[in-house]
């Protein structure tokens, strides 16, 4: 694809995105509007993450893409191939080897280290959107730090179900100021958001927003004293590697109700298996 610029985007567009990233890092959790471009993949399929990755990648980077924790899901493959072609970057599936990781819906199990950048694909960046559809209103609420609506919603859950009925895209408060949508990661991943050594960047293409968490930022999942936040997952070990600390996918293995649970983070699971760990369903 020699007819396109390094990492596809033209330099002016990259500068615009880079300026937005810097402001996002300076105001953790605040959604910076940016003039998202049409990308050669559909809105809703990671165009925000792709634009952010394109703006931060250098030819020296090693790039990893995961979707639902897996490197080999079709959309992850498609995005990885896109940057191989347009930026000529090295790619990897090993979390620890990657310098830039683009993700949809998961944070890798293995703790990230300094020098790494985690880029999230975000569908709806506004944590208040499903409570208030109007952008003009939600922007006002953020400016006034008026988050009562969110607490009311969570409390209504409790009175109705006995629990907060939000299991993914669970809202967080950043540095005591902005309520932020962590993208549709399971709430199991929420505790990894805070105090992370890596830089976290969030890109929402269709909604034209970029936001960020610098390393070691305080991120608190919203909760109540009598209903503290709880990071939950399926109560099973991984059938392949036996891990008990990883987020699991549920697979239906026959038509008799048989099921098994496997790590959603494929790299984590494979590395454990290679190190000799074995689950009850492994060969």
């Amino acid at each position, binding site marked *: 694809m020699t007819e396109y610029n390094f990492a596809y985007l033209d330099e002016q567009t990259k*500068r615009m995105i880079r*300026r937005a990233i810097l402001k996002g*890092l300076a*105001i*953790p959790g605040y959604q910076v*509007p940016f003039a998202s471009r049409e990308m050669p993949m559909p809105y809703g399929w990671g165009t925000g993450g792709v634009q952010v990755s394109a703006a931060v990648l250098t030819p020296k980077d090693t790039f990893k893409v995961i979707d639902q924790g897996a490197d080999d899901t079709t959309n992850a493959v498609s995005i990885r191939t896109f940057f191989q072609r347009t930026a000529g970057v090295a790619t990897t599936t090993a979390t620890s080897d990657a310098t830039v990781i683009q993700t949809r819906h998961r944070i890798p199990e293995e703790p990230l280290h300094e020098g790494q950048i985690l880029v999230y694909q975000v569908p709806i960046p506004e944590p208040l959107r499903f409570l208030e559809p109007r952008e003009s209103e939600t922007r006002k609420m953020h400016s006034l730090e008026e988050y009562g609506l969110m607490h009311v919603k969570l409390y209504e859950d409790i009175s109705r179900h006995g629990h907060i009925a939000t299991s993914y895209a669970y809202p967080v408060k950043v540095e005591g*100021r902005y309520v932020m949508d962590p993208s549709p990661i399971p709430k199991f991943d929420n505790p990894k958001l805070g105090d992370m050594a890596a830089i976290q960047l969030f890109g929402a293409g269709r909604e034209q927003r970029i936001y960020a968490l610098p*390393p070691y930022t305080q991120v608190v999942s919203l909760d109540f004293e009598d209903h503290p936040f709880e990071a939950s997952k399926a109560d099973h070990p991984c059938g392949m590697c036996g891990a008990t600390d990883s987020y699991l996918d549920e697979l239906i293995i026959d038509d008799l109700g048989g099921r098994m649970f496997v790590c959603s983070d494929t790299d984590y699971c494979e590395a454990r298996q290679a190190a000799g760990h074995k689950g009850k369903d492994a060969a």
Partner: protein
Amino acid sequence: MQANTLSGGFADPATQSAHAFRSVMEAMARPGTLRDIEGAAPPAPVSPAMGAVLLTLCDTETPIYLAGDMDCDAVRAWLSFHTGAPFVGPAHCMFAVGKWDALVPLAVYPIGTSEYPDRSATLIVECDALVTSGATLTGPGIKDHAALSLPEVEAFQANRRLFPLGLDFIFTCGERLAALPRSTEVSRSSVPARAHAGAS
């Protein structure tokens, strides 16, 4: 137009600005760390680091304020040629460029609005020295605390009190830079200098 107006830009803009941006981003994400940045050869008094920052972030959409002796024909011509950025006064700038004494007082720069705190100026401050000792820094991007040779303390404390509004700073010196976003708490109490963070 002089010969050095046309030269001193990035020879390979796409990859050089990508590397330069990573230095700027790492610096902004980790206040109190020093980063190497190279590739630009701007006319004096602009340092190579400041030149690279400007080439990386500025274009026709970013009004620049040149403070003090930065506002000279050579710098104007060089920036016009390489970035096309318009020159404005401090009240309407997106980037302000100069030595600390020429940039202060800070009250004149845009600090954003409560609905759009991002619409604030970034000040690029040319420093005679830049080391990881001096004022103590805490806040997002900093594990425990960090230290940086800031030109003063009160102005940054006042800026922090404006949060989430406020100004963001990039400090340049030779081929190095550091940054201080508005989110950083600055205090005078001195701690031993951290080891030099080195190249990004």
